[in-house]
């Protein structure tokens, strides 16, 4: 509906003297992060929306050229800070693809569980915040309590709640403990209750449905043409999920435990439903992965000279110390093939890819991020036209724009 309206409006846009311009953001509570919109309005109706981004630009890609492949994980963490572990896994997945490292089965499973926990955490925030923007405070609290549980699990695994920097080339910082496994099992049991609470509060809530249904419709062709991926594309009927289509980590082995969630509506409500169902599918993956968690080492063999030795070895044995120095010293370090590679994973927001150019040294020559938020925010002007100002908040919430990832 909105796309047809804009054509006729554009012809007469100069004659309409009563159009006015409204500045939305960069510090508006409904944008959640720092982004700005310049809206042309006719009464309350949006005629044109021009996003203005770059307020959080901090040169991550330039910094990446100065840090080595292990150090850059701390920067990658800060891109999508709603689900930092997913970014770390994406980064090291691509680096390992570049180096040709096959990680151990246990590491694959732990990373899979963490990635799915990150997905649940991200979707919880998205749904909670979207409900909050539309006036529902209770689901927000339920969702955030679940996020808190996930933070506890990430803290238990890595020692850090928010920006864990947990992955390393060829493995993880250290192995998880039994307490973590118990914690994950408990989360798998308790989460469905909270999920059904949110479900009952929102899915058939008349205010929520009327505020989201038919708002910000993204047709399938437009979604493909605009490069949408992840829940945004799946809500428009693009059946594509990298976990199924290009299996990585343990998703190939767990392929039968989950399904790809799709909708055909393409509106904010469809995106909400896709995210809700995806959380349950993620939970199935976690459940299957935690029960099939292989034993064995979490890092690849130290003999490959690509992985940092465990910390006790560094402190107590001469071989460990030498190996540690070989990787850490500025004139030594990892040797990489002189190649370029693109790799991607299915992050909670969509396809999160990295294009790495390696020049043989232990630092990337160029590390480009393919941020899903950036691509999705470019969709926003197409969705906003023809709607009221209050609907912008619903559309922004359903696209899940994270400004740190948007601007990098």
């Amino acid at each position, binding site marked *: 509906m909105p796309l047809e309206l804009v054509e006729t409006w554009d012809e007469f846009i100069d004659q309409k003297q009563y159009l006015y311009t409204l500045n939305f953001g960069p510090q508006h509570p409904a944008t959640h992060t720092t982004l700005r919109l310049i809206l042309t309005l006719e009464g309350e109706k949006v005629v044109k929306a021009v996003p203005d981004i*770059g307020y959080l*630009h901090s040169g991550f890609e330039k910094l990446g050229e100065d840090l080595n492949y292990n150090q850059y994980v701390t920067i990658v963490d800060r891109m999508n800070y709603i689900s930092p572990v997913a970014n770390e896994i994406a980064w090291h997945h691509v680096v390992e693809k570049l180096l040709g490292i096959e990680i151990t089965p246990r590491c694959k499973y732990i990373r899979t569980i963490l990635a799915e926990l990150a997905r649940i955490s991200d979707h919880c925030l998205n749904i909670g915040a979207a409900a909050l923007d539309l006036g529902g405070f209770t689901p927000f609290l339920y969702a955030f309590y679940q996020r808190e549980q996930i933070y506890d699990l990430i803290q238990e695994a890595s020692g850090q709640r928010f920006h864990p920097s947990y992955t390393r080339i060829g493995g993880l910082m250290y192995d998880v403990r039994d307490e973590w496994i118990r914690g994950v099992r408990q989360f798998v049991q308790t989460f469905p209750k909270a999920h059904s609470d949110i479900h009952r509060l929102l899915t058939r809530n008349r205010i929520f449905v009327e505020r989201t249904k038919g708002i910000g419709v993204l047709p399938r062709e437009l979604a493909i*043409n605009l490069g949408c991926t992840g829940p945004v594309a799946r809500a428009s009927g693009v059946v594509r999920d990298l976990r199924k289509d290009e299996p990585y980590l343990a998703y190939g082995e767990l392929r039968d435990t989950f399904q790809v969630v799709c909708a055909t509506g393409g509106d904010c409500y469809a995106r909400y439903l896709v995210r809700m169902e995806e959380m349950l599918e993620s939970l199935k993956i976690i459940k299957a992965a935690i029960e099939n968690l292989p034993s064995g080492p979490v890092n690849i063999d130290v003999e490959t000279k690509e992985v940092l030795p465990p910390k006790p070895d560094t402190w107590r044995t001469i071989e460990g110390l030498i190996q540690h120095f070989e990787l850490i010293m500025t004139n030594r370090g990892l040797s990489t093939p002189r190649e370029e*590679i693109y790799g991607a994973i299915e992050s909670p927001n969509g396809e999160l890819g990295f294009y790495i*150019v390696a020049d043989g040294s232990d630092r990337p020559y*160029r590390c480009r991020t393919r941020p899903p938020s*950036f*691509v999705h925010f470019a969709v926003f002007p197409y969705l906003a036209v023809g709607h009221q100002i209050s609907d912008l908040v619903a559309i922004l919430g359903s696209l899940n724009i994270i400004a740190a990832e948007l601007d990098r």
Partner: protein
Amino acid sequence: MIPYEQIIGHLRQLPGCNDIQYSSFRDNHRLVVPKDCIYTVLQRLKDDFNFDMLIDITAVDYLHYPDARHRFGVVYCLLNTQTGQRLIVKTNLDEPDLQLPSAFSLWKAADWLEREVYDMFGIVFEGHPDLRRILMPETFTDYPLRKDYPLRGRGERHDFPVISRAES
């Protein structure tokens, strides 16, 4: 799924495109296309081989890269959503002619991606509807991701006008 060899064979028959180079690394399949026929190649890939999604456009500055023969490379990552086939198309650019035809008419996703490449590398995309800086301020004069732009040190920030609280 159409084999990559067939795609390349088809593309090499286009006028002026006979020196398209093909290479693969891990699961990446890459083409290096001469600058003059980049738009034709992208158009053929979209229309004939159904590469309907533009995943990414980015650029690389090869100033300090060992044995590099060109200054810039512009990289297009394409995806066929039906078959899941991916293709990476690259073209090389040298100063002073940093111009490429815009891919906006093929994929709308190119809009912001090309703006970012312009912002960071100064590569101009001809035919782009709205080629402005996207991440850096509009008054910024340099291209930060070029290799001759320093990582740290005194930069444009010192020239920014200082606004007092009373003026703001």
